[in-house]
């Protein structure tokens, strides 16, 4: 059984006088222990809202509605009462955020913020907590942890801040780690280091990692299974190799086609996906991607396409999928 089973997760934001926004519109995916699962998509496709919903971090009330199931080891996280959920957060499930500077409290030394988790979930006190915090910083590759513990976030470099946040997230050896664009705010060289660190942590501890990103390069280097999101739904799910070799959804094809390539001919232009995420069609009216899709046919409209699952587990939500194995040609002119 999968460690995390997200089933038909839907999040709507309602605001008086405005149309209800379906930020996440029935997302289903599963995460296996020890695996890296990717959630990929453009800005606004519901990646972050999905993760916040699983963590129970969306503001209660205020027009936010979360439906569906997120079964973690058999327990539906969405049904847990807030108190029980607070025990789960940080201990069993932890999260790493996009911007390491704003995710650290500017007026509190790093040490206090790291030990906070240890005090909360592992019942550590005083010297023991400090030593463990030192050990954690050391483990995520922060040199001179004794001194760093006394420092404030603004004195650390961007990469070091993200390492500190990772240290806090893995402090209790959670079984599931959600990383929401953990490298977006960092330099490319630092990005590589942070990804390497995350990979190591997954390998060593058997933690399942959900990698939320819009960077297909990160996905190619990290993820075992990939879920491509569009308009708040999963449009394609596959293992890494089949997804890159033979994508079956035009959106995935478009994403792959818009990556700059070193081996592309001189003067060859990038092929962006026309339109923007805002052009989506509400799912009940058909395929949300249809307005931007080059392979659109009449069957795309009217009803939402079902998720078709092939024997090898490759699943996609398209009535007119690109058939060929040749990515380039399938991009659909």
């Amino acid at each position: 059984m999968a460690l995390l089973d997200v089933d038909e997760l839907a999040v709507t934001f309602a605001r008086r006088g405005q149309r209800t926004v379906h930020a996440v519109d029935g997302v289903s995916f599963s995460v296996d222990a020890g695996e890296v699962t990717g959630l990929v998509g453009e800005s606004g496709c519901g990646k972050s809202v999905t993760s916040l919903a699983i963590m129970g971090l969306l503001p209660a009330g205020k027009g936010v509605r979360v439906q569906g199931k997120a079964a973690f080891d058999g327990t539906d996280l969405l049904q847990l009462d807030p108190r029980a959920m607070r025990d789960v957060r940080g201990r069993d499930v932890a999260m790493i955020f996009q911007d390491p500077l704003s995710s650290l409290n500017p007026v509190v030394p790093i040490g206090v913020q790291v030990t906070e988790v240890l005090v909360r979930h592992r019942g550590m006190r005083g010297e023991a907590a400090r030593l463990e915090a030192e050990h954690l910083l050391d483990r995520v590759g922060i040199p001179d942890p004794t001194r760093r513990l006394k420092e404030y976030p603004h004195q650390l470099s961007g990469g070091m801040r993200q390492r500190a946040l990772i240290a806090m997230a893995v402090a209790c050896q959670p079984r599931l780690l959600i990383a929401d664009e953990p490298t977006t705010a960092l330099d490319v060289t630092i990005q590589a280091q942070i990804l390497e660190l995350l990979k190591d942590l997954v390998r060593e501890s058997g933690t399942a990692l959900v990698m939320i990103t819009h960077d297909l390069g990160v996905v190619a280097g990290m993820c075992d299974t990939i879920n491509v999101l569009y308009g708040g739904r999963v449009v394609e799910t596959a293992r890494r190799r089949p997804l890159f070799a033979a994508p079956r959804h035009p959106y995935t094809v478009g994403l792959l086609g818009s990556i700059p390539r070193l081996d592309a001919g001189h003067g060859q232009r990038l092929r962006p996906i026309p339109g923007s995420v805002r052009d989506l069609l509400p799912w009940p009216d058909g395929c949300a991607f249809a307005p931007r899709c080059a392979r659109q046919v009449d069957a795309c409209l009217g009803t939402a396409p079902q998720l078709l699952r092939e024997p090898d587990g490759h699943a996609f939500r398209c009535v007119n999928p690109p058939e060929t194995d040749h990515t380039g040609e399938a991009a659909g002119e």
Partner: protein
Amino acid sequence: MSDLLSPGRKKAKLDRLAELSAAHDDERGVSLWQEAFRRLRRNPAAIVGTVILGVFLLVALVGPFLVPYDPAAQLWKDEIREAQAFYPGPRAENWFGVDHLGRDEFSRMIVGARQTLLVGVVATLIGLTVGTLIGGLAGAAAGLGGRWGRWVDTVLMRIVDMLLALPSLLLAISIAALLGASLTTVMIAVGMVSVPIFARLLRGSMLAQSNSDYVLAATSLGVRRSKVALTHILPNSLAPVIVQSTLTLATAIIEVAALSFLGLGNPDASIPEWGVMLADAQRYLDAAPRLAILPALGIIITALGFTLLGEAMREALDPKLRK
């Protein structure tokens, strides 16, 4: 490359490097507060304010032990000629002259400084304590408490709004009238006037902070809500409150003087207080204007000192003005 440098230039380069690393070492363990303090020291307004307040504090704390005469003793009563409206002016033995009852004005000003400081500080502390409690509770409840928290916030803030709706002097007079005229009453009254300001300020600041990323990050680690409020939200919300308290000290001193002037202050006339002195002096404005001018100047300069320092602190702590 470096081999091409002459020994002298090489040495200069090494020195520069050492200097840079030393400068870097200096910055270790520098919190935002220390940085703010550094900015404060460069601001002329802050220096002027600090000097004024330093002198005022010195006079208020040490002065009473050094005064030449007992401020309550009517040592020169015989020299006063009320019929000719004559009150001995500044001279060698009485630097600020003699007041309408034959007491040494200089001694009274100095002892009055202590009284003014005491009343101002205590009044501000009352306002600060009550205001921060209400504002902190409301801010934490509104930011983290869900539906029930929002209800607590609403109730607390409507009470604060009611306080805010009353004109401050009227509120102070009502409290003073209710509890009877005394120094304690004046302090409570002036303190209550500043409660809504502190409460609103802290609540707003905390609400803004509770939407920040680090609060989300701490919450995602399962940190308890009370801990999030106390270690994360509160310390980040205090800067405007601290600034406001220096500004409130200035208004508190003025308001205390105003209440004393209106006769709601300390009924014990033997203890000098600048507001009372000002009130007493108005009848002798023609004969001895200095009796009114001196305490008025005292109030103005002290309030100015607090205001200058407060404004400078606001600038130093405002993240938007940070370079």
